[in-house]
């Protein structure tokens, strides 16, 4: 029981540490990575996709944070 609680605490800490207060950013970045992988698999140019995907993920999060009073 104690071990389970410790594992759970560590996992929760890591998720909070990596994902932070807005899970949509991590989700959109994951989608960007997935789409980039599909372009590479299709033998198409893929370098242009990830930077705008990362920026778009952050911009939507910033916009929501400001609307919430951040």
């Amino acid at each position, binding site marked *: 029981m104690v071990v389970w609680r410790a594992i759970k605490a560590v996992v929760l800490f890591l998720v909070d*540490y990596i994902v932070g207060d807005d899970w949509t950013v991590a989700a959109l970045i994951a989608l960007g990575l997935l789409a*980039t992988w599909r372009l*590479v698999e299709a033998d198409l140019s893929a*370098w242009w996709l990830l*930077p705008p995907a990362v*920026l778009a993920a952050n911009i939507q*999060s*910033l916009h929501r944070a*400001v609307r919430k009073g951040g």
Partner: protein
Amino acid sequence: MNWGVFVSTFLAASIEVIEMVAIVVAVGVTRSWRAARVGAAAGLVVLVVTVAGLGAALQGLSLETLRLVVGALLLAFGSQWYRKGILIVSRDGWTTGIGDEDVDEDVPEGFDWTGAFLSFKGVSLEGLEVAVIVVAFGAAADALGSAIVGAAVSVVVIGALGAATYRYVAAIPRRALQLFVGAMLITFGTFWAGEGLSVDWPGGDLALVWLGVLYVAAALLLMRSVSGWRGAVRVVS
């Protein structure tokens, strides 16, 4: 020595080390310097053990897998610092992020175990973040030694500055540093995640430069946009 990795880990670790120093100095000043030092030393041992453990755990992975995983982690983690930096600097200005930590001043007689624990907790939690950064940069660039040296120099230099006089360390504008380091983390994250997916970057390794310029320029533009959004929200409410 991989100087790119050295400088990156030095800067990224410095943000966490400033927070470590803030906590240790706050415990030292308000409770007990002996307890603060004992707690900090125990926290640093945890940091060394964590770096060794994480480093060993990643040895068996291929470089491509490692770069994809590390790149994705840096993108998620770096985005937090990037957004926080943009939000706070656009609201409070470039010199924000200077201040002390609050610590309870109820100090018992004898060795102050509470103070030692507070110091240990501060150093080990901030140290865990340093450990992840060190191992991520070191493993993905295949330069773990340079990453460890970068972080160690940060701990020694910022720690010594903090021990000598906290005013110098407190004067470092943490939020501005956080914004630029956040941009740097997502730059490396984008590059390495792309490399892990076999993306051909225009300019090869020089893509790190144009990606960095792109993210910093976007941050500066976003600070203006965020200020505008705040104005619009105030008008509506």
